[in-house]
């Protein structure tokens, strides 16, 4: 199901059932530009048919003229080829160093910094929270939506699949934020929490954010961003505490 986050920006919410009570989003986002639409990521093979049909429904006769991959990983890049077959005029953007070894078609290289794609200005940010080194977060300067790939996500409950943060009673559950980061970003247990939190702060100091739009989480509206960040930082500190508690008993 597609949820319009801002004028011309759509969240195509797709879910993967981890357990009966815990789901993982595997989303894509669609952004209208002056020549068509840009896709942020391409989703999992599990959802290809739905992604294609929902995208067709939104774009109508207009083309998907650009695809921006946050990184090369199956739940994000797996549908590049079928979607580019469906929209053969789309340009592919990625920070992957070598398309052949990354298993993607030829791409326009992305590095961090500003770039215009399909007439729209984006800022690309090297991701502080990621499971691949070449991951870029995408900031849309028009809508001030920050697309955060594998970072700033959460597991969610079965009744929250298409909810943005303000539609979730009590907000995104801190335990869902903690569990997501613990299981999806395993290296977080080895960091200095204050150092990574400070780095995340610099991003939010630099960019005004109307929405955080993760691939694996509910979109977080601006009014909830501070609470989410607080819960995230507490999660990282909790992982640090757990590491040292385990070390003491080892």
């Amino acid at each position: 199901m597609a949820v319009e986050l801002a004028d011309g920006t759509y969240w195509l919410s797709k879910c993967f059932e981890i357990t009966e009570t815990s789901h993982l989003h595997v989303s894509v986002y669609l952004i209208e530009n002056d020549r068509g639409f840009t896709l942020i990521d391409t989703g999992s093979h599990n959802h290809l048919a739905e992604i294609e049909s929902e995208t067709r429904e939104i774009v109508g006769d207009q083309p998907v003229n650009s695809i921006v991959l946050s990184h090369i990983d199956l739940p994000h890049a797996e549908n590049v080829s079928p979607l580019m077959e469906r929209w053969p005029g789309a340009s592919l953007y990625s920070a992957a160093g070598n398309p052949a070894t990354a298993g993607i078609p030829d791409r326009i290289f992305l590095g961090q910094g500003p770039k215009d794609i399909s007439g729209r200005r984006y800022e690309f940010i090297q991701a502080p929270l990621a499971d691949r080194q070449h991951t870029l977060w995408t900031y849309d300067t028009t809508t001030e939506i920050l697309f955060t790939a594998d970072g700033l996500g959460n597991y969610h409950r079965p009744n929250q699949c298409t909810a943005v943060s303000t539609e979730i009673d009590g907000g995104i559950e801190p335990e869902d934020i903690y569990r997501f980061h613990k299981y999806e970003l395993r290296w977080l247990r080895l960091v200095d929490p204050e150092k990574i939190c400070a780095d995340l702060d610099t991003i939010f100091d630099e960019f005004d954010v109307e929405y955080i739009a993760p691939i694996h989480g509910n979109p977080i509206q601006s009014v909830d961003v501070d609470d989410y960040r607080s819960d995230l930082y507490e999660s990282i500190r909790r992982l640090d505490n757990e590491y040292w508690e385990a070390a003491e008993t080892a």
Partner: protein
Amino acid sequence: MAREVVEGVHWIQEYTSSQIDEYDLDTPEEVFSYLKDNPDDWYNIGANTMSAYLLQDEKSLLFDTLSPAAEDQILRELDDILGSDGLDYLVPSHTDVQHAANSFAILEAYPDAELISPQWGEKHDLYHLQDARFVDVGTTLELGRFTVEFIEPTFPDSAIHTWLFEHTERILFTVDWFGFPVLPDETLRFVDEFDGGFTLDRLYQFHALVVFWYQYADLDKVDREIDHLIERFEPMMLAPAHGNVARKDAVEYMEMIKSVAANVRDEGRIDIAMNKKFDRGGE
């Protein structure tokens, strides 16, 4: 291309292109002298290689599958080495395409091979691993002379991830750790065979780029984890996925990475685009 590390352990290396021809450097001495003064050029002159390892014993096990660009290579190497023998186990270290992408082709060529995946989380379906045999940390496989243990991936990127340790020859398979750029004429050379030696610069260039989160590392934790690996396994050799085999001085190299992590923490990660000359095209 393949080389036997010890009898029965075959190292298969995929080498991607280097831009060394764009530099006016004729000898290894000139190359290393240049790189000493221009460390940012490691990835222009060297390459990010991919390695897979085939353990051939009473049973056989393939660890990693090379990148999608090397599907023909891995199938050819397996055919050359295994001959009419089948492949018993296929173990992608993790779900990254450079490590796992040729799994389907290999399973098609060796339909009796058992696909093995680390048990971590519940999202194996997203990675086509739903029919794999799941193994926990500590699980061992007896291949004959070789005993392979699935161990905690101490420094992972993706979630579903495993390292291996082979107990008989004491080989630690470190996947993305202990990676480094490789010069064109170093393909399938052991680290002790490198002209010009092996320096921290190489390790730094890789880890500052790939193990990017070292920029946030708690160095006490990193050092502790490395010490634990050394104490627990006492490895004789290191077999990484993105570098060459170190058949000697494994512990010395592991200790070196403590300095590498400290350098990355102090100096920051390397920018994605910094080490490569790319055509920044546009519409």
